[in-house]
């Protein structure tokens, strides 16, 4: 505080003691902040400068056009809206990217991204980290061409954030997850399209997520709710997946090995792994060739003592299932072969114990029409021992847990 007073005194004195030359504190002439980013000169420099010099709460507008960028963009000013002319009109193309791990990185709160497309980034598409109350709306993030191992990992990638809204976003071609929300709390993913990704939509190590009104098609796996060990935030819980179209997720798994989704069997609709209090209802499942719903424990060894690798307190109700299960892939293939080739709509691995612990009940509640098939593989524990598998078609007895309340976000005006 003392220094603050001194500092102000110095400043006033400095004005008195001016050398006869004007203090040169004017910012270099830059783009029009709050208006349209100029395409005069180097667009990338104009845009990045606008993002740096934006006033909190202002809007940076992107012009219509197809722009090639050499390095990733970043935004670190609170409350800024970055608005394009439309996701089919403003294209930010990173095919020639040489630097940064993503196309756009947001690290400030209260940001809205809307009306533009990000294409062919070398790493992730748009990442927001520690960016609370972020809104992704009316965006396209895609990798052109066929699904490919060299595509970036995540399309939209909010992480370590509170209050995340993803609305009407299209993501294609991600070699990990199209829409990925990690280590966050209070999340809505809705009315979006995820296709030709390894995972369409993934909620990981997160709490309180509503995923609804989306279409997840032509991915390897449609919608994933995962929890992984050895991360700053573990213990994911309270996710609702409803009113989604989860169809034809039969694309080959093109994730680079080592990533957890590299183990996702092609042809799965929803996978719930190592998570608690997950509700899957009123969705339409169709033609997912391995299984529509897969409940599985985390299959790898881990040392995180606080980690629970089992999916538990899961409720499946009122979904419609058609086709699929007739061409199981990945880890499910030998199991399907062993029981005659066809897997039912819902498959659980049946694991309830791990090296240093167990859960008394996985509490999996299957409240579906009697015609909907269920299979407990009875794997027992990982690592998988084929000799110990004891499949059962008996639905588990369960006490269905109450649904968490709908997620409400401060930036969501309805």
């Amino acid at each position, binding site marked *: 505080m003392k*220094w603050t007073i*001194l*500092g102000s*005194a*110095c*400043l006033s*004195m*400095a004005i008195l*003691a001016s050398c006869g030359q004007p*203090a*040169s*504190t*004017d*910012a*270099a002439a830059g783009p029009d902040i709050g208006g349209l980013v100029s395409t005069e000169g180097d667009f*990338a*420099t104009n845009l*990045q*400068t606008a993002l*740096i*010099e934006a006033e909190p709460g202002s809007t940076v507008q992107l012009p219509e056009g197809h722009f090639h960028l*050499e*390095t990733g963009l*970043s935004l*670190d000013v609170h409350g800024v809206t970055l608005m394009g002319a439309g996701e089919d009109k403003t294209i930010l193309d990173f095919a020639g*990217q*040489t*630097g*940064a*791990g993503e196309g756009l*990185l947001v*690290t400030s709160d209260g940001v809205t991204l809307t009306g533009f497309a990000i294409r062919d*980034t*070398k*790493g*992730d598409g748009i990442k927001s*980290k*520690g960016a609370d109350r972020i809104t992704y709306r009316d965006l396209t993030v895609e990798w052109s061409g066929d699904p490919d191992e*060299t*595509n*970036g*990992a*995540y399309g939209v990638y909010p992480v*370590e954030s509170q209050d995340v809204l993803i609305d009407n976003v299209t993501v294609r071609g991600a*070699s*990990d997850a199209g829409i*990925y929300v*990690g*280590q966050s709390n209070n999340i809505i993913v809705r009315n979006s399209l995820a296709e030709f990704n390894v995972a369409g939509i993934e909620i990981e190590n997160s709490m309180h997520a509503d995923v609804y009104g989306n279409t997840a098609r032509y991915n390897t796996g449609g919608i994933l709710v995962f929890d*992984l060990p*050895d*991360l*700053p935030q573990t213990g994911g819980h309270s996710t609702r997946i409803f009113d989604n179209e989860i169809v034809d997720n039969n694309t080959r798994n093109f994730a*680079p*090995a*080592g*990533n*957890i989704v590299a183990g996702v069997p092609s042809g799965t609709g929803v996978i719930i792994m190592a998570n608690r209090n997950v509700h899957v209802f009123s969705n339409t499942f169709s033609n997912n060739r391995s299984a529509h719903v897969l409940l599985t424990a985390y299959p790898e*060894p881990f*040392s995180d003592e606080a980690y629970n690798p089992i999916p538990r307190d899961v409720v499946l109700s009122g979904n419609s299932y058609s086709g699929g299960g007739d061409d199981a892939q990945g880890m499910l293939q030998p199991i399907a072969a062993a029981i005659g080739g066809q897997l039912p709509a819902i498959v659980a691995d049946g694991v309830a114990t791990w090296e240093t612990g167990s859960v008394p009940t996985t509490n999996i509640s299957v409240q579906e029409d009697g015609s909907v098939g269920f299979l407990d593989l009875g794997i027992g524990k990982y690592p998988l021992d084929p000799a110990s598998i004891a499949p059962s078609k008996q639905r588990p007895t369960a006490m269905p847990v109450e649904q968490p309340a709908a997620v409400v976000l401060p930036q969501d005006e309805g």
Partner: protein
Amino acid sequence: MIARFVLAALLLVSACSGRTDEAATPSLETILSGTPAPALSDYGLFADQARAQPAKGVVAYDLVNPLFSDHAIKHRFVFVPGDQEAKYSATDVFDFPVGTVLVKTFSFAPDMRAPETGQYKVETRLLIHKEDGWAAFPYVWNAAGTEAVYAPAGKHVDLDMIDPAGTPLSIRYAVPNKNQCKTCHQSGDAVLPIGPKARNLNHEGPVGINQLADWQRRGMIDGVPAHPPIVPAVWDTRLPVESRARAYLDINCAHCHKADGSASNSGLWLGWTESDPVKIGLGKHPTAAGRGSGGRIMVVEPGQPDQSILVFRMASDEAGIAMPELGRSVIDEDGLALVREWIGSLDVQE
């Protein structure tokens, strides 16, 4: 209070007498201004800017282990204002007073085997402790090396050189933008310096005497103990390979790979003081590596550098794979060899 006020006023008046004056001192007005100065010379940090002769009160220093930045030669200076002093810490960056400026100039030479011949400046980064916290400001030099201008959006500069191993090298050097500065300097919600920690400064710097003792003698810092910690010198081959590799990871990776850094969500924390094997990468699966995994399963696979993601990403110069993500466009072959040697020395896990 009054005495300090008069002193500050006098300093400001004397700053007006000329930029190449031996008695020139930095301008606190410019340093603490809410707006970055358009030119580096506006700060008055140098008595002779072209020759990098520091102004009075500006002290040259270096680090035991520098961060690799495309072979750049780095010249560092620190300015601690007036009668203020930094508070010593045994483990963290010193608590520098408001008005402190850390100056880092990145230079190259046509033949990096003879770095003093034809050396030229490309960029200077200022890290300034403003009233409301630290902030970073990139400046890009003119061709004559006489002035550098504020470049918030960064810049790409094409450079040709003979690298230190004698190989011709053409690079597209990336001056980071202001936000990218923060990416590496992030600590929670704040921006903090990285280098000036006791263990990194505790050796004879460019001044030729122990830097911590020198800073104490100059009144720039208070509380330096008799035996401050020191980090192993990465290239001192008399030291154990594990400590050298950990020291390398500390200065090259841990500014992001720490609990409150930009890579916190990876859970891979590579700081010198980290002791949990999983956090250092042993037996750790990747989190969000994507194609950065290179098809490998573990971040560090003991005894098997070729099966370790850490090695794969250090050995790449491609965006989306290469680590660090910022600040290098070429591979640090020496650092890579060291980390390979360390991983190779670890006992293979059954």
